[in-house]
């Protein structure tokens, strides 16, 4: 069996300046259905990103989904709205009932429950006169070219970790280092 391990995006807090460009980029590429196009003037809904800037006195960095291999969010979702697709853990917005179990389960706080929008209008619940809320999380820009947050970061603070490749690269480095050591013995 091929060992397919999901990739994930991670921020380097020593490079991140907290500018929120990644959040804005994430929102932009996920909201063409809400008429968001090239400029701020086309934004008609609140900016809902799928990665979340954490800022303290001394550091800043966005936190986002790790696309866990034993994903607590997916495993705990009572309606099976969270699935693995194209090697990423994604929320099926149509199925999500906003029960918040995933929020309780995720150790990173990588999901947020916020109103759903369609064609720039807040989606309403069928019965209750309340906006329908759904879980938002990183989908690794599925069905899109590239990764919006990584591309947009002006400080190159974000990168895609591909665990299998990462391991191979480290193995190779270790091997080369041993080789050098042996040669010099």
């Amino acid at each position, binding site marked *: 069996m091929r060992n397919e391990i999901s990739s994930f995006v991670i921020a380097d807090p020593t490079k991140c*300046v907290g*500018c*929120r460009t990644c959040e804005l*980029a994430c929102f932009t590429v996920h909201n063409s259905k809400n*008429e968001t196009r*090239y400029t701020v003037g086309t*934004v008609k809904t*609140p900016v809902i990103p799928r990665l979340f800037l954490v800022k303290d006195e001394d550091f*800043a960095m966005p936190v986002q989904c790790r696309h866990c291999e034993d994903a607590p969010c997916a495993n705990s979702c009572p309606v099976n709205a969270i699935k693995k697709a194209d090697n990423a853990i994604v929320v099926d917005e149509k199925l999500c009932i906003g029960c918040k179990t995933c929020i309780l389960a995720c150790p990173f706080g990588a999901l947020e429950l916020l109103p759903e929008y369609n064609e720039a209008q807040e989606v309403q619940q069928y019965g209750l006169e309340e906006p329908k809320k759904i879980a938002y999380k990183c989908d690794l820009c599925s069905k899109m070219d590239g990764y919006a947050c990584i591309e947009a970061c002006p400080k190159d603070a974000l990168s895609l970790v591909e665990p299998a490749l990462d391991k191979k690269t480290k193995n190779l480095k270790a091997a080369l280092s041993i080789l050098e050591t042996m040669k010099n013995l």
Partner: protein
Amino acid sequence: MAVLIDQELCTGCKMCSDVCPVDAISGDAGKPQSIDENKCVLCGQCVQMCSSFASVFDEEIEPIEKKLSDRKMLKGIKEPLFAAYYDNNIHKVVDILNDKNQFSVVQCAPAVRVAIAEDFGMDLGSLTPGKMAAALRKLGFDRVYDTNFSADLTIMEEGTELIERVTKNEKLPMFTSCCPAWVKYMEQSHPEYLDHLSTCKSPQQMAGAIFKTYGAKLDNKSAKDIASVSIMPCTCKSFESERKEMNSSGERDVDVVLTTRELAYLIKEMDIDFVNLQEENFDQPLGNYTGAGNIFGVTGGVMEAAIRTGYELITNQPIDSVDVLAVRGNKNFSESIIKVGDLELKVAVVAGLKNVEPIIEAMKNGKADYHFVEVMTCPEGCISGGGQPKVLLPKHKPMAYENRISGTYQHDSESKLRKSHENPAIKKLYKDFLKNPLGHKSHELLHTKYYSRKDK
């Protein structure tokens, strides 16, 4: 008008201070930044750069409604608010449009027509002068005039001024004076060279002075009956209109300035379907323009327009190629020699205020060997101005600039008339009213003085 930073929203990323051409923004990294009003030239590049928006997750910030009101923005605005911003003038325009006793005239800068459609979801750089004119008429302006008309007028005055200075060999190099941020910068940083600035007012202010004098007569009005509004890609144009000397009509020449973005807010507020508007023309005669007036919106454009006219005024021959490619391009700095009859005109074009310092240094050493230098504060001229639609993704910014530039040149190349001195409305204005470029009336209405701000 001021450019400000919201202390609650600023994360201290310092991206704005990196882009500020005059080092007016300071503060520790990670802490809210602040702007030194005396240094700031109001170019608004920080507003374009800032990505620190009011997040729905920030529970500790003031309500958005309060922020909208503090920023004098319309209540219905849905777009996110960012830390770097400018106060809106939009309510003043709403008041003008609601006051039936005022005769309202409006002008639009060249760069607005290649950008405003972006805020209605159209492609970057869409060229929409006809929809823009239609929208302004629908908003209720009595006359939809154009800054492109007065850009042609600027060329008549500035071209003649250049020829005079070159002939007399005095106060050279002559600098363009249509960028108010550049003018403010000279006043505060290099007042000793103020006499090198062309004495010409900017196209906005020339239009303002003409609308309330010649234009007033055309409609049997007096200057005080007219409310003059201008739509600019620029956050510094409002400052320019507020300068105390800008009242040659006897009234304030330009009453209110809106940015491109503010006009988009107003059009949305009035429920005008911009994308599907039928194209309309500008009102005549003060909305008549040539391709030369239109290219003021891009870096090198004022230079090219001046060369098209200057060449023909000096040589009495038609210029070989209307497209003066030597002065085009989006480089920070370029220089070229243009053969004008026997004269070798040495010109330079500066885009981005920071890039002017080498020329100032050369002047100090007596080595600035140019006749004419165009300076624009914003990185690629007015199409990249601080009041233009704000692009969401960094990767789309170069595309936005490129498309706005090509739209500008397309509009020029498709114009029947492409030289300012061939504009029939300009010819008539001189014949009936101004008489000659640099004449008495021109001096009264179209030229200005500059003041040192160094001691302030």
